[in-house]
Protein backbone atom coordinates (compact mmCIF):
# COMPACT_ATOMS: atom_id res chain seq x y z
CA UNK A 1 0.00 0.00 0.00
CA UNK A 2 1.26 3.48 -0.90
CA UNK A 3 0.12 6.92 0.20
CA UNK A 4 -0.10 10.44 -1.23
CA UNK A 5 0.64 13.66 0.60
CA UNK A 6 -3.11 14.38 0.33
CA UNK A 7 -3.71 11.30 2.54
CA UNK A 8 -5.10 8.97 -0.10
CA UNK A 9 -3.88 5.38 -0.29
CA UNK A 10 -3.48 3.12 -3.30
CA UNK A 11 -3.01 -0.64 -3.54
CA UNK A 12 -2.04 -2.18 -6.87
CA UNK A 13 -3.26 -5.55 -8.08
CA UNK A 14 -1.83 -5.91 -11.57
CA UNK A 15 -3.12 -2.89 -13.49
CA UNK A 16 -5.98 -2.22 -11.08
CA UNK A 17 -5.43 0.32 -8.33
CA UNK A 18 -7.79 0.32 -5.35
CA UNK A 19 -7.84 3.76 -3.73
CA UNK A 20 -9.20 5.27 -0.53
CA UNK A 21 -8.35 7.71 2.24
CA UNK A 22 -5.85 6.95 4.99
CA UNK A 23 -6.77 6.23 8.59
CA UNK A 24 -5.14 9.53 9.49
CA UNK A 25 -7.48 11.35 7.08
CA UNK A 26 -10.56 9.45 8.30
CA UNK A 27 -9.70 10.22 11.94
CA UNK A 28 -9.12 13.88 11.13
CA UNK A 29 -12.50 14.15 9.37
CA UNK A 30 -14.39 12.63 12.27
CA UNK A 31 -17.78 11.03 11.69
CA UNK A 32 -18.23 10.51 7.95
CA UNK A 33 -21.87 11.06 6.97
CA UNK A 34 -21.75 11.12 3.18
CA UNK A 35 -19.48 9.79 0.44
CA UNK A 36 -19.74 10.46 -3.28
CA UNK A 37 -17.67 7.98 -5.32
CA UNK A 38 -17.10 8.15 -9.08
CA UNK A 39 -19.06 6.09 -11.60
CA UNK A 40 -17.43 3.38 -13.70
CA UNK A 41 -16.07 4.75 -16.97
CA UNK A 42 -14.95 8.08 -15.54
CA UNK A 43 -11.40 9.02 -16.48
CA UNK A 44 -9.35 10.51 -13.67
CA UNK A 45 -5.93 12.15 -13.63
CA UNK A 46 -3.56 12.03 -10.72
CA UNK A 47 -4.24 15.00 -8.44
CA UNK A 48 -7.82 15.56 -9.67
CA UNK A 49 -10.68 15.65 -7.21
CA UNK A 50 -12.49 12.40 -8.00
CA UNK A 51 -14.66 11.85 -4.91
CA UNK A 52 -16.16 13.77 -1.98
CA UNK A 53 -16.28 12.81 1.66
CA UNK A 54 -18.38 14.71 4.17
CA UNK A 55 -18.27 14.84 7.95
CA UNK A 56 -21.02 16.40 10.07
CA UNK A 57 -19.27 19.75 9.73
CA UNK A 58 -17.80 19.92 6.23
CA UNK A 59 -17.30 18.51 2.75
CA UNK A 60 -13.79 17.56 1.59
CA UNK A 61 -12.45 16.64 -1.86
CA UNK A 62 -10.62 13.36 -2.37
CA UNK A 63 -7.80 13.55 -4.91
CA UNK A 64 -6.86 10.71 -7.25
CA UNK A 65 -3.45 9.28 -6.31
CA UNK A 66 -3.16 7.66 -9.78
CA UNK A 67 -4.40 8.27 -13.34
CA UNK A 68 -6.67 5.91 -15.20
CA UNK A 69 -10.26 4.82 -15.79
CA UNK A 70 -12.62 4.06 -12.93
CA UNK A 71 -13.89 0.49 -13.18
CA UNK A 72 -15.92 0.58 -9.95
CA UNK A 73 -16.93 3.06 -7.26
CA UNK A 74 -17.63 1.62 -3.80
CA UNK A 75 -21.42 1.78 -3.92
CA UNK A 76 -21.68 0.35 -0.39
CA UNK A 77 -20.46 3.68 1.03
CA UNK A 78 -23.64 5.46 -0.11
CA UNK A 79 -25.70 3.64 2.50
CA UNK A 80 -22.90 3.03 5.00
CA UNK A 81 -20.55 6.05 4.94
CA UNK A 82 -19.41 5.21 8.48
CA UNK A 83 -17.39 2.33 6.96
CA UNK A 84 -14.81 4.99 6.06
CA UNK A 85 -14.20 5.56 9.79
CA UNK A 86 -14.45 1.89 10.78
CA UNK A 87 -12.12 0.46 8.13
CA UNK A 88 -10.61 3.27 6.05
CA UNK A 89 -7.80 1.23 4.54
CA UNK A 90 -9.96 -1.85 3.83
CA UNK A 91 -13.75 -1.99 3.36
CA UNK A 92 -13.85 1.80 3.19
CA UNK A 93 -12.13 1.93 -0.24
CA UNK A 94 -13.48 4.55 -2.64
CA UNK A 95 -12.79 3.27 -6.15
CA UNK A 96 -10.96 0.77 -8.33
CA UNK A 97 -9.08 2.45 -11.14
CA UNK A 98 -7.56 0.71 -14.19
CA UNK A 99 -4.15 2.29 -14.68
CA UNK A 100 -1.84 2.24 -17.68
CA UNK A 101 1.20 2.72 -15.46
CA UNK A 102 1.28 1.00 -12.07
CA UNK A 103 4.01 3.34 -10.90
CA UNK A 104 4.44 4.47 -7.31
CA UNK A 105 6.39 7.57 -8.35
CA UNK A 106 5.56 10.43 -6.02
CA UNK A 107 3.84 8.10 -3.53
CA UNK A 108 5.15 7.00 -0.14
CA UNK A 109 5.31 3.54 1.38
CA UNK A 110 3.84 3.19 4.87
CA UNK A 111 7.11 3.91 6.67
CA UNK A 112 7.64 7.07 4.62
CA UNK A 113 3.99 8.12 5.11
CA UNK A 114 4.23 7.60 8.89
CA UNK A 115 7.39 9.73 8.87
CA UNK A 116 5.52 12.36 6.81
CA UNK A 117 2.62 12.36 9.31
CA UNK A 118 5.10 12.92 12.13
CA UNK A 119 6.14 16.19 10.47
CA UNK A 120 2.58 17.59 10.35
Amino acid sequence: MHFSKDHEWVRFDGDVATVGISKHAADALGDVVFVETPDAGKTVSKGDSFAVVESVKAASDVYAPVSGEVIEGNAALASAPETVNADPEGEGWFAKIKVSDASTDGLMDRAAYDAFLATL
Partner: protein
Amino acid sequence: MTDEALKTTPLNAAHRAAGARMVGFGGYDMPVQYEGVLAEHRWTREHAGLFDVSHMGQCKITGEDAVAQFERFVPGDYAILKAGKQKYSLLLNAEGGIMDDLMAGKPDHDGLYVVVNAGNKDADFAFLQDNLQGDAKLKILDDRALLAIQGPEAAEVMAAHEPLLAEIGFLECARLMLFGCDCFISRSGYTGEDGYEISVPADQAERVWNEILKDARVKPIGLGARDSLRLEAGLPLHGHDIDASTSPVEGALTFALSKSRKERADFNGADRILKELADGPSRVRIGLSVKEGAPAREGAEIADMNGNVIGAITSGGPSPTLGRNIAMGYVPPKFAELGTDLKVIVRGKPAAAEVVATPFVAQRYYRKPKA
Protein backbone atom coordinates in the same frame (compact mmCIF):
# COMPACT_ATOMS: atom_id res chain seq x y z
CA MET B 1 -5.57 33.76 12.05
CA THR B 2 -2.68 31.91 13.66
CA ASP B 3 -3.10 29.86 16.79
CA GLU B 4 -1.01 32.41 18.66
CA ALA B 5 -3.61 35.07 17.94
CA LEU B 6 -6.45 33.02 19.43
CA LYS B 7 -7.72 33.86 22.87
CA THR B 8 -8.41 31.11 25.39
CA THR B 9 -11.20 30.51 27.86
CA PRO B 10 -10.52 29.63 31.51
CA LEU B 11 -11.28 26.00 30.57
CA ASN B 12 -8.67 25.65 27.82
CA ALA B 13 -6.40 23.39 29.85
CA ALA B 14 -9.36 21.22 30.89
CA HIS B 15 -10.36 20.73 27.23
CA ARG B 16 -6.85 19.78 26.21
CA ALA B 17 -6.50 17.40 29.14
CA ALA B 18 -9.76 15.74 28.06
CA GLY B 19 -8.31 15.15 24.59
CA ALA B 20 -10.52 17.65 22.79
CA ARG B 21 -9.76 18.60 19.22
CA MET B 22 -9.35 22.38 19.26
CA VAL B 23 -10.26 24.89 16.54
CA GLY B 24 -10.42 28.64 16.21
CA PHE B 25 -13.96 30.00 16.60
CA GLY B 26 -15.02 33.59 17.20
CA GLY B 27 -11.37 34.46 17.91
CA TYR B 28 -11.04 31.75 20.57
CA ASP B 29 -9.27 28.40 20.74
CA MET B 30 -12.28 26.17 21.36
CA PRO B 31 -13.05 22.42 21.56
CA VAL B 32 -14.84 21.28 18.39
CA GLN B 33 -15.20 17.71 19.65
CA TYR B 34 -14.12 15.31 22.37
CA GLU B 35 -15.15 11.77 21.41
CA GLY B 36 -16.93 12.65 18.15
CA VAL B 37 -19.66 14.97 16.94
CA LEU B 38 -22.35 12.32 16.41
CA ALA B 39 -21.81 10.63 19.79
CA GLU B 40 -21.81 14.01 21.57
CA HIS B 41 -24.94 15.13 19.71
CA ARG B 42 -26.80 11.97 20.71
CA TRP B 43 -25.56 12.13 24.30
CA THR B 44 -26.98 15.63 24.64
CA ARG B 45 -30.36 14.58 23.20
CA GLU B 46 -30.51 11.57 25.55
CA HIS B 47 -28.67 12.64 28.73
CA ALA B 48 -26.86 15.89 29.53
CA GLY B 49 -24.07 17.70 27.71
CA LEU B 50 -21.78 20.32 29.23
CA PHE B 51 -20.56 23.10 26.94
CA ASP B 52 -17.91 25.75 27.46
CA VAL B 53 -19.40 28.90 25.96
CA SER B 54 -17.08 31.30 27.74
CA HIS B 55 -16.15 32.81 24.38
CA MET B 56 -19.55 34.52 24.36
CA GLY B 57 -19.79 38.09 25.60
CA GLN B 58 -21.35 38.82 28.98
CA CYS B 59 -22.17 42.30 30.23
CA LYS B 60 -24.35 44.23 32.61
CA ILE B 61 -26.20 47.40 31.68
CA THR B 62 -26.98 49.33 34.83
CA GLY B 63 -28.34 52.66 35.97
CA GLU B 64 -31.79 54.26 36.14
CA ASP B 65 -31.89 54.60 32.35
CA ALA B 66 -30.55 51.09 31.59
CA VAL B 67 -33.77 49.56 30.28
CA ALA B 68 -34.95 52.62 28.36
CA GLN B 69 -31.57 53.03 26.72
CA PHE B 70 -31.23 49.33 25.86
CA GLU B 71 -34.72 49.35 24.31
CA ARG B 72 -33.63 51.93 21.74
CA PHE B 73 -31.69 49.18 19.98
CA VAL B 74 -33.81 46.08 20.62
CA PRO B 75 -37.48 45.40 19.76
CA GLY B 76 -38.38 43.56 22.98
CA ASP B 77 -40.32 45.04 25.90
CA TYR B 78 -37.81 44.97 28.74
CA ALA B 79 -39.65 47.58 30.80
CA ILE B 80 -42.40 45.09 31.64
CA LEU B 81 -40.03 42.14 31.99
CA LYS B 82 -40.27 40.95 35.57
CA ALA B 83 -37.25 40.38 37.79
CA GLY B 84 -36.13 36.76 37.41
CA LYS B 85 -37.05 36.59 33.70
CA GLN B 86 -35.04 36.83 30.53
CA LYS B 87 -35.93 37.36 26.91
CA TYR B 88 -34.34 36.67 23.52
CA SER B 89 -33.82 39.79 21.47
CA LEU B 90 -32.00 41.39 18.57
CA LEU B 91 -29.54 44.25 18.53
CA LEU B 92 -30.73 46.32 15.55
CA ASN B 93 -28.91 48.85 13.42
CA ALA B 94 -30.61 51.99 12.12
CA GLU B 95 -31.73 50.10 9.01
CA GLY B 96 -33.41 47.39 11.07
CA GLY B 97 -30.65 44.87 10.32
CA ILE B 98 -29.65 42.37 12.99
CA MET B 99 -26.22 43.34 14.36
CA ASP B 100 -26.46 40.44 16.80
CA ASP B 101 -28.92 38.24 18.60
CA LEU B 102 -28.78 38.07 22.37
CA MET B 103 -30.33 37.06 25.65
CA ALA B 104 -31.06 39.79 28.17
CA GLY B 105 -32.65 39.33 31.56
CA LYS B 106 -33.06 40.53 35.09
CA PRO B 107 -31.37 37.94 37.31
CA ASP B 108 -30.95 40.48 40.11
CA HIS B 109 -32.16 44.00 40.85
CA ASP B 110 -29.23 45.67 39.17
CA GLY B 111 -30.15 46.42 35.57
CA LEU B 112 -29.87 43.93 32.73
CA TYR B 113 -27.55 40.94 32.33
CA VAL B 114 -26.86 40.41 28.61
CA VAL B 115 -25.16 37.58 26.69
CA VAL B 116 -24.05 38.20 23.09
CA ASN B 117 -22.24 36.18 20.42
CA ALA B 118 -18.46 35.68 20.61
CA GLY B 119 -17.72 36.95 17.13
CA ASN B 120 -19.74 40.12 17.66
CA LYS B 121 -19.01 40.97 21.25
CA ASP B 122 -16.28 43.55 20.66
CA ALA B 123 -18.47 45.39 18.14
CA ASP B 124 -21.58 45.06 20.34
CA PHE B 125 -19.84 46.41 23.41
CA ALA B 126 -18.27 49.27 21.47
CA PHE B 127 -21.69 50.12 20.02
CA LEU B 128 -23.37 50.08 23.42
CA GLN B 129 -20.54 52.05 24.99
CA ASP B 130 -20.89 54.72 22.30
CA ASN B 131 -24.67 54.84 22.21
CA LEU B 132 -26.01 54.33 25.73
CA GLN B 133 -27.03 57.72 27.07
CA GLY B 134 -28.13 59.17 30.38
CA ASP B 135 -26.82 57.26 33.36
CA ALA B 136 -27.00 53.85 31.61
CA LYS B 137 -23.63 52.19 31.99
CA LEU B 138 -22.08 49.19 30.30
CA LYS B 139 -19.99 46.85 32.42
CA ILE B 140 -18.24 44.09 30.47
CA LEU B 141 -18.07 40.91 32.55
CA ASP B 142 -14.82 39.59 31.10
CA ASP B 143 -13.92 38.12 34.47
CA ARG B 144 -16.62 35.46 34.01
CA ALA B 145 -16.82 32.11 32.26
CA LEU B 146 -20.07 30.73 30.83
CA LEU B 147 -21.08 27.06 30.94
CA ALA B 148 -24.18 25.49 29.40
CA ILE B 149 -25.66 22.20 30.52
CA GLN B 150 -28.25 20.87 28.09
CA GLY B 151 -30.32 17.74 27.74
CA PRO B 152 -33.23 15.85 29.28
CA GLU B 153 -31.19 14.96 32.38
CA ALA B 154 -29.73 18.45 32.90
CA ALA B 155 -32.39 19.48 35.42
CA GLU B 156 -31.88 16.43 37.63
CA VAL B 157 -28.13 16.85 37.48
CA MET B 158 -28.32 20.49 38.55
CA ALA B 159 -31.03 19.91 41.18
CA ALA B 160 -28.58 17.60 42.94
CA HIS B 161 -26.34 20.65 43.39
CA GLU B 162 -29.12 23.17 44.13
CA PRO B 163 -32.73 21.99 44.54
CA LEU B 164 -34.05 25.49 43.73
CA LEU B 165 -32.95 25.04 40.13
CA ALA B 166 -35.62 22.41 39.49
CA GLU B 167 -38.24 25.06 40.10
CA ILE B 168 -37.20 27.82 37.77
CA GLY B 169 -38.91 27.68 34.38
CA PHE B 170 -37.74 28.18 30.80
CA LEU B 171 -36.44 31.73 30.30
CA GLU B 172 -36.25 32.41 34.02
CA CYS B 173 -33.00 33.53 35.55
CA ALA B 174 -31.43 34.19 38.93
CA ARG B 175 -28.29 35.36 40.64
CA LEU B 176 -27.33 32.95 43.38
CA MET B 177 -24.52 31.13 45.14
CA LEU B 178 -23.79 27.88 43.32
CA PHE B 179 -20.76 25.69 44.00
CA GLY B 180 -19.79 28.29 46.58
CA CYS B 181 -19.52 31.15 44.10
CA ASP B 182 -21.56 34.06 42.76
CA CYS B 183 -23.39 32.82 39.63
CA PHE B 184 -25.89 34.10 37.11
CA ILE B 185 -28.04 31.19 35.97
CA SER B 186 -30.82 30.97 33.42
CA ARG B 187 -32.95 28.10 32.19
CA SER B 188 -32.17 28.43 28.49
CA GLY B 189 -29.74 27.28 25.87
CA TYR B 190 -29.00 26.70 22.21
CA THR B 191 -29.85 23.06 21.62
CA GLY B 192 -33.65 22.88 21.88
CA GLU B 193 -33.28 20.85 25.06
CA ASP B 194 -34.09 21.75 28.62
CA GLY B 195 -31.05 23.07 30.46
CA TYR B 196 -29.22 25.99 31.97
CA GLU B 197 -26.57 28.54 31.18
CA ILE B 198 -24.37 29.28 34.17
CA SER B 199 -22.10 32.30 34.45
CA VAL B 200 -19.32 31.69 36.97
CA PRO B 201 -16.28 33.72 38.07
CA ALA B 202 -13.42 32.83 35.69
CA ASP B 203 -11.15 31.64 38.48
CA GLN B 204 -13.82 29.15 39.61
CA ALA B 205 -14.71 27.87 36.14
CA GLU B 206 -12.49 24.79 36.03
CA ARG B 207 -13.58 23.69 39.50
CA VAL B 208 -17.30 24.08 38.62
CA TRP B 209 -16.77 22.36 35.24
CA ASN B 210 -15.14 19.36 36.92
CA GLU B 211 -17.74 19.30 39.68
CA ILE B 212 -20.60 19.07 37.16
CA LEU B 213 -18.74 16.43 35.11
CA LYS B 214 -18.48 14.14 38.15
CA ASP B 215 -22.09 13.16 37.44
CA ALA B 216 -22.03 10.16 35.07
CA ARG B 217 -25.04 11.57 33.20
CA VAL B 218 -22.90 14.50 31.98
CA LYS B 219 -20.27 14.54 29.22
CA PRO B 220 -18.36 17.48 27.75
CA ILE B 221 -19.67 18.49 24.32
CA GLY B 222 -17.81 20.44 21.64
CA LEU B 223 -18.87 23.17 19.26
CA GLY B 224 -19.41 20.64 16.45
CA ALA B 225 -22.37 19.08 18.21
CA ARG B 226 -23.51 22.49 19.46
CA ASP B 227 -23.92 23.50 15.82
CA SER B 228 -25.79 20.34 14.75
CA LEU B 229 -28.01 20.57 17.85
CA ARG B 230 -28.96 24.21 17.25
CA LEU B 231 -29.59 23.46 13.57
CA GLU B 232 -32.06 20.70 14.49
CA ALA B 233 -33.69 23.12 16.93
CA GLY B 234 -34.13 25.63 14.07
CA LEU B 235 -32.13 28.28 15.92
CA PRO B 236 -30.30 30.76 13.69
CA LEU B 237 -26.55 31.32 13.93
CA HIS B 238 -25.61 34.98 13.60
CA GLY B 239 -23.16 35.65 10.78
CA HIS B 240 -24.68 32.76 8.84
CA ASP B 241 -28.48 32.55 9.09
CA ILE B 242 -28.93 36.18 10.09
CA ASP B 243 -26.64 39.19 9.77
CA ALA B 244 -26.57 42.97 9.70
CA SER B 245 -28.47 43.00 6.39
CA THR B 246 -31.27 40.73 7.64
CA SER B 247 -34.36 42.14 9.31
CA PRO B 248 -36.24 40.27 12.04
CA VAL B 249 -39.11 39.75 9.57
CA GLU B 250 -36.83 38.24 6.93
CA GLY B 251 -35.15 36.17 9.61
CA ALA B 252 -38.49 34.69 10.74
CA LEU B 253 -37.88 36.14 14.21
CA THR B 254 -41.04 38.22 14.54
CA PHE B 255 -41.71 36.58 17.92
CA ALA B 256 -38.93 38.84 19.20
CA LEU B 257 -40.96 41.94 18.31
CA SER B 258 -43.00 42.82 21.39
CA LYS B 259 -46.54 44.03 20.69
CA SER B 260 -46.08 47.16 22.78
CA ARG B 261 -42.84 48.02 21.01
CA LYS B 262 -44.40 47.59 17.56
CA GLU B 263 -47.19 49.96 18.64
CA ARG B 264 -44.67 52.51 19.88
CA ALA B 265 -42.35 51.97 16.88
CA ASP B 266 -39.55 53.39 18.98
CA PHE B 267 -36.62 51.08 18.22
CA ASN B 268 -33.85 51.16 15.61
CA GLY B 269 -35.12 50.29 12.15
CA ALA B 270 -38.79 50.32 13.18
CA ASP B 271 -39.82 51.91 9.86
CA ARG B 272 -38.44 49.10 7.74
CA ILE B 273 -39.57 46.38 10.13
CA LEU B 274 -43.16 47.63 10.42
CA LYS B 275 -43.35 48.08 6.65
CA GLU B 276 -42.18 44.50 6.12
CA LEU B 277 -44.73 43.27 8.64
CA ALA B 278 -47.48 45.07 6.70
CA ASP B 279 -46.36 44.40 3.12
CA GLY B 280 -44.27 41.26 3.50
CA PRO B 281 -40.47 41.02 3.16
CA SER B 282 -38.69 40.28 -0.12
CA ARG B 283 -37.16 37.08 1.31
CA VAL B 284 -37.73 34.95 4.37
CA ARG B 285 -35.83 32.29 6.29
CA ILE B 286 -37.22 28.78 5.84
CA GLY B 287 -36.43 25.25 6.93
CA LEU B 288 -35.73 22.63 4.27
CA SER B 289 -35.75 18.87 4.38
CA VAL B 290 -33.25 17.70 1.77
CA LYS B 291 -34.60 14.43 0.44
CA GLU B 292 -31.67 13.02 -1.52
CA GLY B 293 -27.95 13.28 -2.06
CA ALA B 294 -25.33 15.17 -0.13
CA PRO B 295 -25.84 17.58 2.76
CA ALA B 296 -26.71 21.06 1.46
CA ARG B 297 -24.46 23.49 3.31
CA GLU B 298 -24.03 27.26 3.56
CA GLY B 299 -23.78 28.83 0.12
CA ALA B 300 -25.62 26.10 -1.81
CA GLU B 301 -28.22 27.60 -4.16
CA ILE B 302 -31.94 27.00 -3.81
CA ALA B 303 -33.90 26.70 -7.07
CA ASP B 304 -37.58 26.43 -7.94
CA MET B 305 -38.91 23.41 -9.83
CA ASN B 306 -38.15 25.18 -13.13
CA GLY B 307 -34.49 25.49 -12.20
CA ASN B 308 -34.53 29.22 -11.46
CA VAL B 309 -32.23 30.12 -8.59
CA ILE B 310 -34.39 31.80 -5.94
CA GLY B 311 -32.17 31.83 -2.87
CA ALA B 312 -29.37 30.20 -0.93
CA ILE B 313 -28.73 27.92 2.02
CA THR B 314 -27.34 29.67 5.11
CA SER B 315 -26.66 26.56 7.18
CA GLY B 316 -27.28 22.90 6.72
CA GLY B 317 -26.04 19.43 7.34
CA PRO B 318 -27.03 16.01 8.51
CA SER B 319 -29.55 15.73 11.34
CA PRO B 320 -28.30 12.94 13.59
CA THR B 321 -31.71 12.74 15.29
CA LEU B 322 -33.75 12.53 12.08
CA GLY B 323 -31.24 10.60 9.99
CA ARG B 324 -31.60 12.92 7.01
CA ASN B 325 -30.23 16.20 5.76
CA ILE B 326 -31.75 19.49 6.87
CA ALA B 327 -31.00 23.10 6.07
CA MET B 328 -32.05 26.70 6.55
CA GLY B 329 -32.00 29.34 3.86
CA TYR B 330 -33.76 32.28 2.30
CA VAL B 331 -36.37 32.35 -0.48
CA PRO B 332 -39.05 34.83 -1.61
CA PRO B 333 -42.20 34.43 0.53
CA LYS B 334 -44.20 32.85 -2.30
CA PHE B 335 -41.90 29.82 -2.05
CA ALA B 336 -41.96 29.70 1.75
CA GLU B 337 -45.22 27.84 2.26
CA LEU B 338 -44.83 24.54 4.11
CA GLY B 339 -44.78 21.59 1.72
CA THR B 340 -43.40 23.58 -1.24
CA ASP B 341 -41.11 21.43 -3.40
CA LEU B 342 -37.79 23.04 -4.22
CA LYS B 343 -34.32 22.00 -5.34
CA VAL B 344 -31.00 22.55 -3.63
CA ILE B 345 -27.93 22.58 -5.83
CA VAL B 346 -24.88 20.88 -4.35
CA ARG B 347 -21.73 20.70 -6.48
CA GLY B 348 -23.84 21.36 -9.56
CA LYS B 349 -26.36 18.61 -8.86
CA PRO B 350 -29.96 19.52 -8.06
CA ALA B 351 -31.50 17.51 -5.22
CA ALA B 352 -35.14 17.41 -4.12
CA ALA B 353 -36.01 19.45 -1.03
CA GLU B 354 -39.21 20.45 0.72
CA VAL B 355 -40.05 23.46 2.85
CA VAL B 356 -40.73 22.18 6.37
CA ALA B 357 -41.52 23.74 9.72
CA THR B 358 -38.77 24.57 12.19
CA PRO B 359 -37.73 23.40 14.71
CA PHE B 360 -36.85 20.26 12.77
CA VAL B 361 -36.64 18.37 16.08
CA ALA B 362 -39.22 19.30 18.72
CA GLN B 363 -37.90 21.62 21.43
CA ARG B 364 -38.20 20.24 24.95
CA TYR B 365 -38.01 23.33 27.12
CA TYR B 366 -39.26 23.13 30.69
CA ARG B 367 -42.50 25.05 31.14
CA LYS B 368 -43.62 25.45 34.69
CA PRO B 369 -47.07 24.09 35.46
CA LYS B 370 -49.56 26.94 35.76
CA ALA B 371 -50.23 27.78 39.38
